[in-house]
């Protein structure tokens, strides 16, 4: 397939350089048919040979149901799995100690083990918890701040561990399902009663309120709320009833938000992590979360 042959079959030679042309011509400019540099050709042939060897040794060609495996039986997936196993083996001793520790308090008082738990916990927190609770556990409206000293379900190590393991209002059989009722929407209380109750709740945390309405609200509080929030409104960890007398509010402590909470009810969900995280991982997470705010 010689393009550069003229009709007579002769190869045209460029006068100036003495090199044969390809026969291609653009506006009088002819393309010279210089050979490829030898080093380039050598590299090219080496690459061709390498490629053939690579097909034989390594996974290469896709098929209908699979692919050619290659003689080396190489698999990145296997390598990653092996590396993870290796990592787990390297951490096995410390991980085992986390589970075997007599209590999580004992982990905290062992500097080396505590350091391991905090490092593992920080990484797990970033992967699993930060989406809702924030990168530093600072929380958002409806998602508790884990740095402060207010704990809806208890801030002791055991409480935190339980919250992570079985979740709260989750699908886990052992979870706690108590929730704040929608007093307004469900028609349990009238609008006026809810207005009075709002004033009373404001008074519990020492905020400005309508004193007369609060006195009326106190009666409703005693009737409807003390079962969970306690007579003085300080809450109950076992039922997940928040302390209404402190400065911390999960959804907001202003008049409008308290009213909204009373009208519509609340029931934030913490999923159960038992199926996704190992026992040791949950222990590490508990120690980490406990360290964020000092816990209880």
């Amino acid at each position, binding site marked *: 397939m010689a393009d550069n042959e003229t009709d007579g079959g002769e190869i045209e030679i460029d006068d100036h350089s003495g090199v044969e042309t390809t026969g291609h011509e653009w506006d009088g400019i002819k393309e010279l048919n210089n050979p490829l540099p030898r080093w380039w050709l050598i590299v090219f042939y080496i690459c061709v040979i390498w490629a053939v060897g690579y097909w034989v040794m390594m996974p290469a060609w896709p098929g209908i149901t699979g692919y050619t495996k290659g003689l080396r039986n190489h698999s990145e997936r296997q390598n990653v799995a092996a590396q993870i196993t290796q990592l787990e083996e390297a951490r096995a001793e410390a991980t085992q100690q986390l589970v075997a520790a007599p209590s999580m308090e004992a982990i905290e008082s062992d500097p080396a083990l505590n350091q391991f738990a905090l490092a593992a916990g920080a990484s797990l927190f970033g992967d699993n918890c930060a989406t809702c609770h*924030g990168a*530093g556990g600072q929380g958002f409206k409806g998602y508790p701040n884990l740095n402060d000293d207010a704990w809806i379900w208890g801030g002791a190590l055991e409480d935190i561990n339980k919250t992570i393991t079985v979740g709260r209002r989750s699908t886990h059989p052992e979870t706690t399902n108590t929730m704040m009722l929608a007093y307004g929407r469900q028609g349990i209380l009238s609008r006026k009663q809810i207005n009075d109750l709002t004033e009373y709740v404001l008074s519990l945390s020492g905020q400005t309120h309508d004193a007369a309405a609060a006195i009326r609200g106190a009666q409703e509080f005693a009737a409807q709320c003390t079962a969970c929030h306690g007579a003085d409104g300080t809450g109950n960890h076992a039922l997940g009833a928040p302390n209404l007398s402190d400065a911390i509010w999960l959804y907001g402590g202003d008049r409008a938000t308290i009213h909204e909470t009373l009208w519509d009810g609340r029931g934030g969900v913490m999923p159960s992590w038992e199926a996704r995280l190992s026992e040791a991982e949950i222990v590490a997470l508990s120690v980490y979360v406990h360290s964020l705010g000092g816990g209880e």
Partner: protein
Amino acid sequence: MAPASPTTVGGGTGEASVERIDVEAVNSPAKRTLYKAREPIHPKRVHGKYRRLKWAIMALTLGVYYALPWLRWPRGVNEPNQAILIDFAGSRFYFFSIEIWPDELYYVTGLLILAALGLFLATALFGRIWCGYTCPQTVWTDLYIAVERWVEGDRNKRIKLASQPWTTDKVIKKISKHTLWILIGMATGGAWIFYFHDAPTIAAQFFKGQAPFSAYFYFALLTATTYVFAGSMREQICTYICPWPRIQAALTDADTLEVTYKSDRGEPRGAHKKGDSWEGRGDCVSCRACVAACPMGIDIRDGAQLECINCALCIDACDDIMARVGRPASLIGYDTDVNMVRRKAGMAQKYNFIRSRTILYSVAFVLVAAIMSWALITRATVNLHVIRDRTPPYVMLSDGSVRNAFTVKIINRGNIERHFQLDVDGPDETGVSVVGESVDGRSLELAVADDAIRSIRLFVTLPREAISAPSIPITIKVRDIRTGEEAATSTVFLSQGR
């Protein structure tokens, strides 16, 4: 100054006791082209004071290199007892009584600055004495040439061997030489790894095949570089690869002592017959002993040149000839450009070592050395790093007070476990707590293991009424209970403000 042509040299009409050598400088300007294959250089053996000095320096530098890792230095339990150890795994650098952490690398920077300034000063005074006597390339090449001479004989025998066909004798000699070279290379690569691991341990592991991959890798690399650089590349490293020859030209001046052919005394050169008068001619008898001795393959009589490493072997070669023809020694010797000019003008020689540049280098050297020594003497053995929480920067607590959380790292650079008292200085109402520790007021005692960092989470709380501004300065400090050594960090207490 073109080299004398071969015809004026040969002939055999010259001084009976002086052998004339048919050799030309490899960098002769007449032969220069843009590309040229290397011409093999076969340096001839010389005897003399500089050769003896070079043997002594070779023994010293190689001795230090090979033996230093084996020097022990007791540091106590849990610490390596190797005097010089670059411990990558433990991220420590041990140098006798000094132990450097990775964050103290500026000590190494200071050491390199000192080395550079010292090199500048030495070069300004004595030219390329680093290149000529102590550069590893020079030392190992010199050793390899000595081995080559021992196996194959001196210059003439080596030239003959190179041109003769492959006989059994030649094969044996070549194999012996390369085997010895590789063995020296292996010793070099082997000694290198001892600087990075405990020498006796890694030596045992190395031969049992249990040493880490990096040990074998660097052993192989240093073996290969030693063998290639000193065996076959030799002067090409200095001429083509090393930047120092280019830089050093800027550091020398007309008062610098350099290996010099004293042309005022040597010219006009030419063959000299025994009994002929020395009147009206120079002392150079054109024997080219200086060229034959040169490991760089150059002609020192062409004047100062980039290729010349100032190894001084031509001085010995020429002194030997001068003694035989009955002329004074040191036709080639350490000399300055100034003196060459002064002698030509009939003036007395004058050496000027105290010059602006030598003063500048000396002052800079002393200054850096003083700063380094001061830094080393006052080096803290306890450091405190305080990292504040950023998400969230502060937290409101249930009683309305505000809390800031800090990660506090106490770095104990000492070799024993130490007990520190941690204090937080701030407004009177400041409350302090630490996860997993009990706090007495605003201070607590913490044990930090030897040569380790302890990290704690510290909470600082202020009641609402004590908060006067969104940012209140506080100070966190630690004090060694036994020695009283302190470290403090100033930070701020953040809040929403009043």
